[in-house]
Each structure stands twice: as structure tokens, then as C-alpha cells.
């Protein structure tokens, strides 16, 4: 079975449309969405309606949660004062625009989804706000996958697509206690973390949308980069009264606001 995994659409309807067309051309059997349907972009309602109308299985992202529960993330969500101020402007605008039924839809989204040996989350299995960066240490990466019981963990949140294969290996855990040290060994099977990148808010230096196609028959992953008319989104950002810097950053292939740098930090609320 060929599945498409999309993430981090952030209210960018033009990008979503282009990606869905590309998925159609790739003849994917099923689509999964890793959340962050809203936030920063100019069309949050239209994006959610499209996902709902297509019955795409979707997990809740950190932005979806913030729109439902209010902006109460700890300071770690913002790597700078400037990012915080911009994030709050985007949150306030989105919160004002969102339709009641859209908010209800976002509220009932699950935090993770399973499909056989595959698991789908937004940030990490522990928290929607946690970044699983490609360079996170192997032990942490393996722990995150094994915590799900799956073999392949799909995540988003970083906005940078990647595939990380964690080779099968012998792990030793040593525990030091007052009465001595005990060690436990176990074999970790081959695991994978696949980050789907971002449909609506890329961070790879180009404005193109990214997502992944995964073939369950041969475990092959293809990272897809899709061109679309990002100028339409930029225009909509300006017309909707969102900060013009969002349009500029989108056109540069930069996130609207840069992400937090500490990949191991988990937001404590």
C-alpha cells in the first residue's frame, strides 16, 4: 500500500491544493495528516474544511491545540521575543477567524494514530511541542520510536523533511542503585523516523511544499517537493491583514517564526 503523509499546513490552502493534486498523481492509496492545520497562514478554515471533507486521518498539532485551549505554551515555544510577538499576532488573528465547527473538529483530533506497524504523531510521541530534530542523539530517537510500539514513526513539527534509519543494535542500560549497579541488555530492531516536512510553511530555503510517500510493501520512502503559486498565499497574507513579514518569509522558504533550538526540551504546562 502506498500512503502519503502530510504535515504542518498552517492555513496555506494553495499549498495544500497543490500537494493533494500531486498525491493524486502519485496514486497514493491513503493519506495521513500530522497536524498543525492552522496558524500563521491566511486560510485556516478552508484548510480544515478540505481535510475534513476528504476524511483524512489527522492528529492534533501544537497550533491546533493552542487554538482549542488558548495560547498557554511555555516560553520554550518561542526562541526569541520577536518570534513570541509574531506568534501571538498569528494566534490572535487565527483565533478570531476560526469557525466554531472548525474549533470543535480540532479539539477532537487524537494525539497519535496507528496503522499496523506505523505510528503518526505531530512532534513526538511524548508531546506535540517536542522537536525530533534529525541530529537528536540515537538513544533518544530510538526511545521515541520504541515508546510507540511501532517500527516506523512519522512526525512533522520541524518543517524539515528527513528519513532517519536506526539500525538494529544491542542496547545496554545501566542503573546505579545504592546496592550496586545493574545492567540490562536488549536488542533493538530496525526502526525509522520519517519527518514529512511542511506543506504550508517550509524551512528548506525554497517556498515549495514538502510531504512524503511511503510504500508499506517495500518500506521505501520518497520525499516529495511540490511547487505551487506561493505568491497567491503571500497576497492573501497581506490582504487578510497578517504581518507582511510572514509573506516575505514564506517566499524565502523560511518559517514564519523560527523554531525553538533545543530539540530535547519538552514543553511543561
Amino acid at each position, binding site marked *: 500500500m502506498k500512503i502519503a503523509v502530510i504535515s504542518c499546513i498552517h492555513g496555506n490552502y494553495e499549498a495544500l491544493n497543490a500537494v493533494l493534486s500531486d498525491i493524486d498523481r502519485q496514486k497514493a492509496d491513503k493519506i495521513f495528516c500530522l497536524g498543525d492545520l492552522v496558524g500563521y497562514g491566511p486560510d485556516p478554515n478552508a484548510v480544515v474544511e478540505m481535510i475534513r471533507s476528504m476524511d483524512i486521518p489527522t492528529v492534533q498539532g501544537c497550533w491546533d491545540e493552542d487554538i482549542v485551549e488558548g495560547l498557554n505554551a511555555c516560553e520554550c515555544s518561542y526562541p*526569541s*521575543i*520577536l*518570534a513570541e510577538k509574531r506568534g501571538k499576532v498569528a494566534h490572535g488573528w487565527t483565533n478570531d477567524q476560526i469557525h466554531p465547527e472548525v474549533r470543535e473538529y480540532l479539539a477532537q483530533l487524537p494525539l497519535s494514530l496507528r496503522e499496523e506497524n506505523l505510528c503518526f504523531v505531530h512532534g513526538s510521541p511524548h508531546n506535540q511541542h517536542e522537536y525530533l530534530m534529525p541530529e537528536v542523539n540515537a538513544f533518544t530517537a530510538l526511545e521515541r520510536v520504541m515508546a510507540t510500539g511501532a517500527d516506523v514513526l512519522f512526525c512533522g513539527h520541524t518543517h524539515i523533511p528527513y528519513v532517519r534509519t536506526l539500525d538494529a543494535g544491542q542496547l545496554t542500560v545501566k542503573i546505579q542503585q545504592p546496592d550496586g549497579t545493574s545492567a540490562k541488555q536488549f536488542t533493538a530492531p530496525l526502526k525509522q523516523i520519517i519527518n514529512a516536512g511542511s506543506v504550508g510553511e517550509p524551512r528548506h530555503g525554497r517556498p515549495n511544499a514538502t510531504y512524503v510517500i511511503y510504500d508499506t510493501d517495500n518500506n521505501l520512502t520518497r520525499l516529495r517537493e511540490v511547487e505551487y503559486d506561493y505568491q497567491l498565499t503571500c497576497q492573501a497574507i497581506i490582504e487578510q491583514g497578517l504581518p507582511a*513579514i510572514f509573506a516575505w518569509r514564506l517566499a524565502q522558504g523560511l518559517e514564519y517564526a*523560527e523554531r525553538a533550538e533545543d530539540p530535547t526540551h519538552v514543553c511543561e504546562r
Partner: protein
Amino acid sequence: MDRHPIYLVTGPCGSGKTTWIHQQLITSNEPSAYICLGADATPIDLTYITATCPHVKPISAGTSWAQLTEIQPLYVEIAPQLDLSKLQLPVSIESCQRIAIVPKGLITSEYHDWATKTLISEVTEKNATLTASPRWGLTGEVLDPASLNVFWDELIQGAYGSVARAKGIFEIVDGRSFYFSFGVGYPDVTYFELPLPPVLNERPTRFSGLEVVGDKIQAQVIMETLEDCGLDDNALAYYQEQIRSQLSTELPAEVLV
């Protein structure tokens, strides 16, 4: 005894006037003086030069020329917006060394005509016609360094208009002062800490500011973004207290006897 001349240094925006003067001053330890005509409200160059060359006497507006000429060599940088043909100085201009710093490819200009010596800099000709330069005095503002990095990257990449030249002095929350410099055609983007004492009590009173030269510069948006990068009084007091506390608990180095 022979006296050093007074150097009058001119050239278009971003041609490297301050860089050339700094190169002359940094290689000498003799008492010198520097003034930038036309930049009294935002003395970025003056602050940069006097912070990095302690032997240079800082000269600001209002200083009499009689006092100025007592310290020589005296370097007088002339901002591009000043009309050279109408320049009036209390000393005979003809008695001064008139130096033009011009970009590569600029063959003729008012700077060539006016100067007695023309030096070719490494920058391109592109900026030669630019003279208007929005400036922002930021004295008292303390910026969040991560926000400053984002702002600066956006600025020099064109988020607020096409920038040919930008330079600024910024105060950050740990009390340090940084000099930032960017120019189209310059080999590198530069930023470094100025050797000034840290300010960890309230807001600094020493100068900080920004100057940007370019096309369609969105001055209002730049000002608003800089405001968004700044710390309010409560946040500043909190962080300064943290830093003072950290410094006070650091043990002095162990002395071996």
C-alpha cells in the same frame, strides 16, 4: 615640528570611508582625533572608532575647531548627504588632505573632482548614487540577542527594502554592546562585540543606533520590528538581576602560593 595634516575623507554611501579611516587609526598608537560631519544624531562611526581605538579622541558636535586641530592627525569623515561644494570649515580646506574613497568602476564623480587623492575600494559601484540613509537612534533600548539575529538577517536579505549598506550598534541583555555591519560587495557580514564596559544596571545611556542605505526602505516597519526585539523594564530588570547574581556567586580563581 611637522604637523600631520587634517584628513577630509569623502565618498559615496558604503564606499568604505570609515573602514579606511579605521585602518589608519588601528595601526597607530599616537593620539588622534575623529569626527563625522553629518551624523551627529546617530554617531555610529564615531562610537565604533573610539571604542576600538582608545587613543582616538571622540569628537562630537559642538566641539570647537580650535580644540580639534590641537590633536592631529585629525580625520574628518564627510557624510554623503553633505554638499561638498558648499562645505565650509573653520580651517582652509586647501590646507587639508582631501581623500575620496570610491567604489570600483566609478570613474568620474564629484568626489574625484573634489579630492586631491582618490582611493579605490573593494566595493561595487552599485551604491554610488545612494545618499538617503534612514537612521534610528536606539540609545536606552536593550535588545534580545536572538531577536536581533532574526531582524538583522531579515534586514540584509531584503525583508524591509533593498539594502545596500547597513550598520548599527546594539545593546543586548547581558550588558554587551555589538557593532553590526553589512554592505553589498563587502567580503563579509561583520558583527563583533565592542570593548566597552558591560551595563548591568538599568538602561545604558551610551549611544546605540542603526543606519540603513538602500532602496524603498520601510523605515516604519524597521522601527516597529526593532521595538518588538526590545526588552521592557520588567524583563530587563529580571535578567540583569539574574546576571548580577550569577557573577557575584562565581568564585574567584584559586590562588596558588
